[in-house]
């Protein structure tokens, strides 16, 4: 191949095909960027605004209740009812069942239980 003038070399250079990337390169870039867990926001903008408004309302209500002198008796009464309820064995049983269910779901998820394969059987 002779390249006596620079234009000829330019043409040859520009005609060169780009190197072929290895298989899976694009997928791995996507996994590290676009599909990375950090890329997805837990809450959208409107959801964040709604959560902020609800927290502000809850704070205001709590403050208003605590600051009200007549609320002291009501709060005391409510706490007494709560303590009596928690002391009830039936309530405690149901609370235990609920807690165990929550632990089970968080560990096992919603997937059905699978028995381990026996030796000699295809997985």
């Amino acid at each position, binding site marked *: *191949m*002779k*390249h006596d003038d*620079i234009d000829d*070399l330019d043409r*040859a*250079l*520009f*005609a*060169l*095909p*780009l*190197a*072929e*990337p*290895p298989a899976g*390169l*694009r997928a*791995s*870039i*996507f996994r*590290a*960027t*676009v599909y990375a867990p950090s*890329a*997805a*926001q837990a809450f*959208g*903008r409107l959801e964040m605004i709604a959560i902020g408004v609800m927290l502000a309302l809850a704070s205001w209500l709590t403050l208003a209740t605590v600051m009200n002198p007549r609320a002291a008796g009501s709060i005391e009464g409510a706490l007494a009812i709560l303590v009596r309820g928690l002391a009830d064995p039936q309530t405690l049983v149901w609370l235990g069942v609920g807690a165990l269910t929550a632990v089970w779901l968080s560990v096992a998820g919603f997937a059905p239980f699978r028995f381990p394969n026996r030796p000699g059987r295809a997985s």
Partner: protein
Amino acid sequence: MSRVAPEIEDGYLVAAALAGRPEAFGTLVERYDRAVFHLCLRTMRDVEEARDCTQEAFFKAFRSLKTFKPGAKFSTWIFSIAYHACCDRLGRRKRFSREELPDKADLAPGPAAVAEQNDEARALRAAIAALPEKYRTVITLYHLQGRQYEEIAQVLGLPMGTVKTHLFRAKELLRKALSNE
């Protein structure tokens, strides 16, 4: 010469990605991954390292997308990140050996090129691969970006005059190597 879509669309995609649509960055990946890999491969001369540098470049770009200046060219930006990733790797592994200096560069075609003398593209690729690193990179960017010397200078962080000199010398070396066939 540009092998990609107009820059205004790239800017739009960057803005969309910043506005919470990461899939817009996916389009940029699809648009530039091959060119970035090509640059990394030419610089590193190793497929696995080029692959790692390409991934690293896009990851860094994604993480620092906020620093992308509106109106700038995305190709120049991503090439610059990729080139610096390559330089870091080369520096770490002390790949810049004396054999890569221009005066001592082996311009003779390698065994693969000798066997493929009838294939012009392969001969040219072999000649480019035999160039010293700084000329190889500048000729690769010239291949990718065309006669946009200012952008090549931005990617390499060199004055435009140096880029033109490197390019001139690279072409001279290429012509010499190819005429020796």
